């Protein structure tokens, strides 16, 4: 025991002589985001489970259909429809995951008192809040993208195998499917709409989760409902609800583009359309304001 503690004492002296390592802001951010993924495994497990279910369903369907339909055009249409369905369902899944993640992100650490541990480390409130905001705004869209593309690719392969099995040519199936363009359009849609266009929602939810002592979901919904009702009663208008609906619908132009995306992506999708709309930039400014408020609120908060 004595020699052991002597050795440790010596190593204490040695390590004190060494200059401390330099930790860059990027590194702190990287580990903070990894930390979020450790804590909230639903971020990647939920889309994977949904993708597995979809593939399972598709497998059964295509085995059944392999014997019946021989019409290639019809088969391709079904495949395209299924691909869109996959993308749509995975987007919905990760949106729900994102909403629940945000509501808990700055609330859970106060509830379980671990905020006292996180605050005992040299990580600023800004880094913490930004790392949490990056989950719905950056990480979830990228995970959705990867899961969707891989799922769609596996579906293509399954269809191809069924075709090969029935002795038909693959070329019509693969030629019309825009293999490169579709993922690009999907990535664009996910990053711009699901990441940045929806960012004000996530910012608001993070702010509420930093502030509310309990029932974060209610506190997030209540002001929205209240503003809608007051506006209706006071001015008999519904602008606030309309703005929210427009935002949630992905913004007129963007949503219609998203709808057409799978059909013939690069023709009808106007990539810069939404980027030059003022609403997009106003949304980002509002997000920044919400996040700045969340940083400030977290600074004052302790365990609840």
């Amino acid at each position, binding site marked *: 025991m004595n020699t*052991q503690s002597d050795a440790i004492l010596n190593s204490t002296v040695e390590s004190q002589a060494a200059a401390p390592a330099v930790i860059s802001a990027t590194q*702190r951010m990287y580990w903070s985001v*990894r930390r979020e993924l450790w804590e909230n495994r639903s971020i990647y497990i939920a889309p994977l489970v949904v993708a597995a279910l979809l593939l399972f369903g598709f497998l059964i369907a295509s085995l059944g259909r392999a014997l019946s339909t021989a019409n290639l055009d019809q088969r391709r249409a079904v495949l395209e429809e299924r691909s869109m369905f996959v993308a749509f369902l995975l987007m919905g899944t990760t949106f729900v995951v994102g909403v629940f993640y945000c509501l808990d992100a700055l609330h859970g650490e106060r509830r*379980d008192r671990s905020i006292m541990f996180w*605050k*005992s*480390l*040299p990580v600023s409130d800004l880094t913490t809040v930004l790392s949490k905001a990056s989950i719905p705004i950056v990480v979830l869209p990228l995970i959705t993208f990867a899961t969707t593309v891989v799922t769609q690719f596996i579906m293509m392969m399954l269809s191809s195998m069924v075709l090969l099995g029935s002795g038909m040519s693959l070329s019509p199936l693969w030629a019309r499917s825009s293999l490169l363009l579709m993922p690009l359009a999907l990535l664009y849609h996910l990053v711009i709409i699901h990441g940045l266009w929806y960012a004000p929602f996530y910012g608001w939810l993070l702010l509420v989760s930093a502030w509310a002592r309990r029932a974060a979901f209610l506190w997030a919904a209540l002001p929205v409902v209240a503003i809608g009702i007051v506006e209706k009663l006071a001015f008999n208008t519904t602008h606030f609800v309309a703005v929210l609906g427009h935002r949630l619908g992905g913004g007129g132009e963007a949503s219609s583009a998203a709808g057409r995306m799978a059909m013939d992506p690069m023709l009808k999708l106007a990539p810069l359309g939404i980027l030059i709309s003022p609403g997009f930039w106003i949304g980002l400014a509002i997000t920044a304001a919400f996040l700045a408020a969340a940083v400030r609120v977290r600074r004052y908060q302790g*365990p609840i």
Partner: protein
Amino acid sequence: MTVIEARGLRKAFGTTVALDGVDLRVEEGRILGLIGPNGAGKTTALNAILGLTPYQGQLSVLGRDPWNSRDQLMRDVCFIADVAVLPRWIRVSQALDYVAGIHPRFDRAKAEGFLAKTTICLTSKVRELSKGMVTQLHLALVMAIDARLLVLDEPTLGLDILYRKQFYDSLLNDYFDRSRTIVVTTHQVEEIQNVLTDVMFIDRGRIVFGCSMEEFESRYLEVTVHPEQVAAARALKPMQERQALGRSILLFDRADRQQLATFGDVRTPSLADLFVAVIGNQPGRAQGAAR
């Protein structure tokens, strides 16, 4: 070098005054015990020092303003707040990875060395560990950080006696040296009496007593007085008198040891007894708030 310097530190929650003009000065290499009854302002004082709560008055920790630069301050300051604040979902290995990833002064090998002496498994999650093991893990993380100031707020609350003893033993043997400073609050006064170099009593937001342990040992004497000499001993104006097993025990401040020896057995009092004497003598305060 002064590690903590506070002047006129004030903090109120609504109408409740938690800190009422605290003056405090802690030099490098000291182990200060901050002792006070519940609600005396210990935790509020520590939170102010750690930059977790805003305050009025002047406060400087390692030359920094804690409230405005908490994240920079935490490179040189560690703290264990209460017990079991480690997140329950984290794995021991993840905790090591994370702290190594973000803390410039963390020595992972050292932390693993401390953990190797416990029964904690690197793949365990915190929720699977016992309360004592969580404290061991937290201590291993903190002791592997080359910090200049360590703040402990009731670090052994709710632990059994083995873990409590072990906690302070490892702190003294494996961690403390003259270039580090430790501030600790606890209810278990008797446990840290031999650990401290300085002691302060805090009551209702004020520092009511403070001295070094050397001064404490030379200034305060406790005498178990023979019944027939009680009156003579009382004439020397003891700070406090209490009864134990039918004998009177008198506590004296700056009395002559030779003279006291004529009344009975003389010894150094426990911090707990001095605490009761000091806090109990405060106007409007009932006795017996030591634990």
